[in-house]
């Protein structure tokens, strides 16, 4: 998943109440005026829509997963991450050849009450709902960003994709061979080739259950009027401002009970994360999320106790977090806690394989020289400086697979920062001291960037200074995000900076970025091409988890490090602060649907507001 600039900011919280339920076209008061417990989160990126099939990015996914559910979900506490059944009664039965997945679906799961159903009463969930929901993702008319998850993987789904083109309404009765409801509670998925990552895909919002009645009832408005089976219902959504959810009465009505996980690591027990083990979730009645665009504003709201948690603005970092990564004392006194965790993502500088200078060449001599140039630039990249610039919030990374995934390289990369080696490699590449021998001028490399904000500019200037040390000039072009995407899709970027955030916890998700058939406009934006990598990738793509597969992952990672199609810049840490009244809070790389486990303790919050509510700190969190 490519994060856009704002996605890295995390959540924050407040509370207020306004009670309007948007049905499809009418409004109704269905939720109690006086909420028991209320929690609210703010975040700095905008929710774009609430339709699981079409709405793509992080903040939308978070909102969607409060309302909708899928067959599987991530375990809240288990690390390494794993998926567990949610709407499925158990993990699926997988055929010997790895092609057929049979899911038993839980009985007694109901959709929320909504005027789209006969009599306004939510009906029971059926296997057919999953068939319908997945078909919606590949419907051309929906222009979903999730087509990749199913296209070419589920047998016969292409025929449905093609048939959905044109003016006529899509015919959902068209059968897809690989997607069948055998009976009301049995779903069968047949694949074209083994795809062990399917289980992770089914935990993503693209595979969440959507009732056909609601889509047909609301039409284009469906994106604003979600109807799911999840713990919360939408109360009101004011685009670009706030969104409010309330505990769905349907769970209590139909006797559905979900509980907090009962096992965790000793550290998690010590951190008090298992206090609520076995208790029914969700704990909070009301959730309010705000779209706070400006980090200074959200920080003030957090200090005043209006938000339960907040990200830390880079400008404030030094004052808030001490060099030993503990919180400043005035914040600590107020029971504010710092939450940090590494984030499964890789930030990289990619070389366009099509480029005659930094890419591949048909001429083997030139090809070797270009490789040396890429290696030289990798050696010129100094992680420590970048880390210092980012307030020590980064982890070094030595290959394409981030920690803690199987396949991560443990030995340091041979192309870590080393100026001597960089200069030597540069000579071998034919650019002694950065002078291009054929023209006599300094070697100039162009880099494309997808944002023009201060942070991007400063870190790019830092990169340029690193390259300057070996005599190479880095020229930066700052683009808007869409213009950047277009340049990459048209393969016009010589080099570019980009990140990949794991879609699921499997190294395959990162190694696919080096598969030649995934070249632009696919996710292999470096357009990297290596027959050996292609062969190995095709092999591991169908392999279930095994030590043998991990060995191949490592082998691939080593080849990629040697070829240096990317400079592996860093893996980020995510940091957030939260107030003491937010309980059961643990950082999760796949936080979708995990909100139901958080608890806001109104008693602690009341006490806090009484003792600190009026005593305002200054912006840096000092008295």
């Amino acid at each position, binding site marked *: 998943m490519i994060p856009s600039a704002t996605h890295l900011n995390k959540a924050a919280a407040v509370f207020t109440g306004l009670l309007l339920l948007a049905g499809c076209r009418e409004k109704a008061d269905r939720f109690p005026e006086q909420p028991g417990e209320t929690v609210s989160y703010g975040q700095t990126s905008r929710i774009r829509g609430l339709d699981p099939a079409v709405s793509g990015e992080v903040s939308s996914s978070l909102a969607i997963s409060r309302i909708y559910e899928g067959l599987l979900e991530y375990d809240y506490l288990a690390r390494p991450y794993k998926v567990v059944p949610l709407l499925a009664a158990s993990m699926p039965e997988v055929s010997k050849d790895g092609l057929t997945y049979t899911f038993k679906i839980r009985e007694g799961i109901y959709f929320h009450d909504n005027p789209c159903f006969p009599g306004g009463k939510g009906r029971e969930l059926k296997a057919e709902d999953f068939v319908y929901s997945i078909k919606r993702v590949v419907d051309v008319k929906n222009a979903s960003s999730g087509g990749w998850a199913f296209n070419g993987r589920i047998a016969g789904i292409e025929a449905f994709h093609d048939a959905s083109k044109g003016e006529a309404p899509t015919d959902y009765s068209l059968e897809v061979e690989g997607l069948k409801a055998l009976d009301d509670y049995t779903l069968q998925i047949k694949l074209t080739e083994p795809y062990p990552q399917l289980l992770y895909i089914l935990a993503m919002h693209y595979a969440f259950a959507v009732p056909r009645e609601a889509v047909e009832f609301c039409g284009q408005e469906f994106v604003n009027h979600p109807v799911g089976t999840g713990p919360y219902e939408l109360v009101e959504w004011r685009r670009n401002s706030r969104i409010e959810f309330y505990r769905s009465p349907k769970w209590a009505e139909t006797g559905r009970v979900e509980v907090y996980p009962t096992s965790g690591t000793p550290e998690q027990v010590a951190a008090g994360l298992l206090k609520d083990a076995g208790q029914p979730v969700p704990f909070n009645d009301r959730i309010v999320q705000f779209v706070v665009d400006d980090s200074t504003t959200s920080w003030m709201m957090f200090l005043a106790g209006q938000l339960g948690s907040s990200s830390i603005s880079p400008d404030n970092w030094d004052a808030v977090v001490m060099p030993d990564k503990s919180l400043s004392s005035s914040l600590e006194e107020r029971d504010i806690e710092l939450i940090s965790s590494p984030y499964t993502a890789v930030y990289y500088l990619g070389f366009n394989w099509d480029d005659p200078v930094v890419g591949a060449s048909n001429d083997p001599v030139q090809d070797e020289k270009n490789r040396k140039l890429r290696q030289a630039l990798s050696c010129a990249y100094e992680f420590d400086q970048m880390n210092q610039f980012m307030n020590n919030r980064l982890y070094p990374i030595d290959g394409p697979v981030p920690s803690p995934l199987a396949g991560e390289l443990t030995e340091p990369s041979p192309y870590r920062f080393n100026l001597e080696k960089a200069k030597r490699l540069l000579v071998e590449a034919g650019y002694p001291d950065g002078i291009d021998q054929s023209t006599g001028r300094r070697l100039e490399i162009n880099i494309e960037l997808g944002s023009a904000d201060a942070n991007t500019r400063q870190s790019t200037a830092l990169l340029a200074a690193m390259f300057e040390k070996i005599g190479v000039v880095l020229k930066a072009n700052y683009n808007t995000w869409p213009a950047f995407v277009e340049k990459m899709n048209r393969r016009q970027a010589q080099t570019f900076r980009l990140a990949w955030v794991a879609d699921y916890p499997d190294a395959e998700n990162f190694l696919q970025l080096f598969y030649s058939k995934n070249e632009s406009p696919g996710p292999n934006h470096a357009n990297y*091409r290596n027959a050996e990598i292609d062969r190995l990738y095709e092999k591991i793509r169908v392999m279930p988890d095994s030590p043998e597969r991990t060995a191949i992952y490592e082998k691939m990672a080593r080849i990629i490090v040697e070829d240096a199609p990317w400079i592996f810049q860093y893996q980020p840490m995510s940091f957030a602060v939260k107030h003491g009244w937010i309980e059961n809070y643990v950082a999760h790389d796949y936080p979708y649907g995990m909100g139901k486990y958080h608890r806001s303790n109104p008693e602690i919050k009341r006490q806090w507001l009484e003792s600190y509510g009026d005593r305002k700190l200054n912006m840096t969190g000092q008295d």
Partner: protein
Amino acid sequence: MLKYILKRMVQMIPTVVGVILLTFILFNVVGGDLAAIALGKKVSLQTLQNFDEQRGLNKPLFFGTRAQTRAYEDQDLSEGAGRWRGWTNAVYAAEAGTVTLQPGAAVNPIAFDLDDDEEFVWTIRYRGAGTLAGQALASDDWKTEKIRFSGADEGGFETADQALEFRSLKLRRVNRNPFDSQLTFYIRQLARGDLGFSESMKQPVTKLLKDGVLPSLSLTIPIFFIGLVVSITLSLVCAYFRDTFIDRFLVIFSVALMSINYLVYIVAGQYFLAYKFGAFPVWGYESAKYLLLPVLIGVVSGLGSSIRFYRTIMLDEMYKDYVRTAFAKGVSKPRVLFVHVLKNAMIPIITNVVIAIPFLYTGSLLLESFFGIPGLGYLSINAILSADIDVVRAIVLIGALLFVVSNLLTDICYAAADPRVKLK
């Protein structure tokens, strides 16, 4: 009067057509690749093409019988091998900027199966011999040829015992009706009253505008009227106390107000008035209370320039003969200012005021984003940043139309304010 208004309305038609054309050209020619933005990170060319077809983006821009297709995108071979790198039996020569297909090769550069019902045209500049889309090519010298074939046919290259070298290659879809273009698609859409569909929000644009206009107006209309009343009053005070301490003080005060950056007002207002003293909510759009601070900031920040502007107008009038006559008649100073001068200063005031009306609807970008008011300013900046063409186009179009209408309104107001102005 009515005749005049009708005449002006007719004169507005070419302006409106111009605006429609301009917004179309501005955003469709310069705008980004909508499909790539909507479909996200992992897409195939086939999926992009399907999206284009669905939204009419595969048509020519204005008119024409040829349209581009993603099956083979134009490429300048002198710049690099691009898509031709992967083939083992096609050799790219960088110096010449050509690709040579080896003898006995079968190469199909078309990325996906073409639509069977459509016709396509290859344009190739080549030498050597071989077949392209089933038709023979043979020439010893460089030669340009157009080859028309049906989407149902095999569209690739084959070579027998000779090599085929080419230096440019283009694929076009045959557009059966030359007027079936993106422009006509857009105009037909406007004629239906449909402003398009936002790809990033997955919503009809009309819905987005409807949701955003009220918050915007609830912010800009109070700012507009309060600002107007306060600045005209203060400018009359200036004129009344001309060259005294009060006048000097107000002039210096307005220069100071003008010199401070808008952002400073916002951040200082949020930090001191809202956060430290708790007089207002810091952020949000919950009730009228939440609008007080942004309105206050909006009024204060606009005050400086307005006071100076209106003061100049008032002082200009003060030197006119009728003012002297009025004073000579013994009319009191307040009466001269508030009745005689204000009435005569109406023309420049009207000009200034009515022209500001279209901007009320576009909202205040900074105030909206800092205070979380879900208005149109916020919507437009998001749309621009995410290249959501339909939204930007609609906002610009409506803004331009409002501008044209308020121009007419200004003229009508002139006639109402000044009996010497006759509308013909």
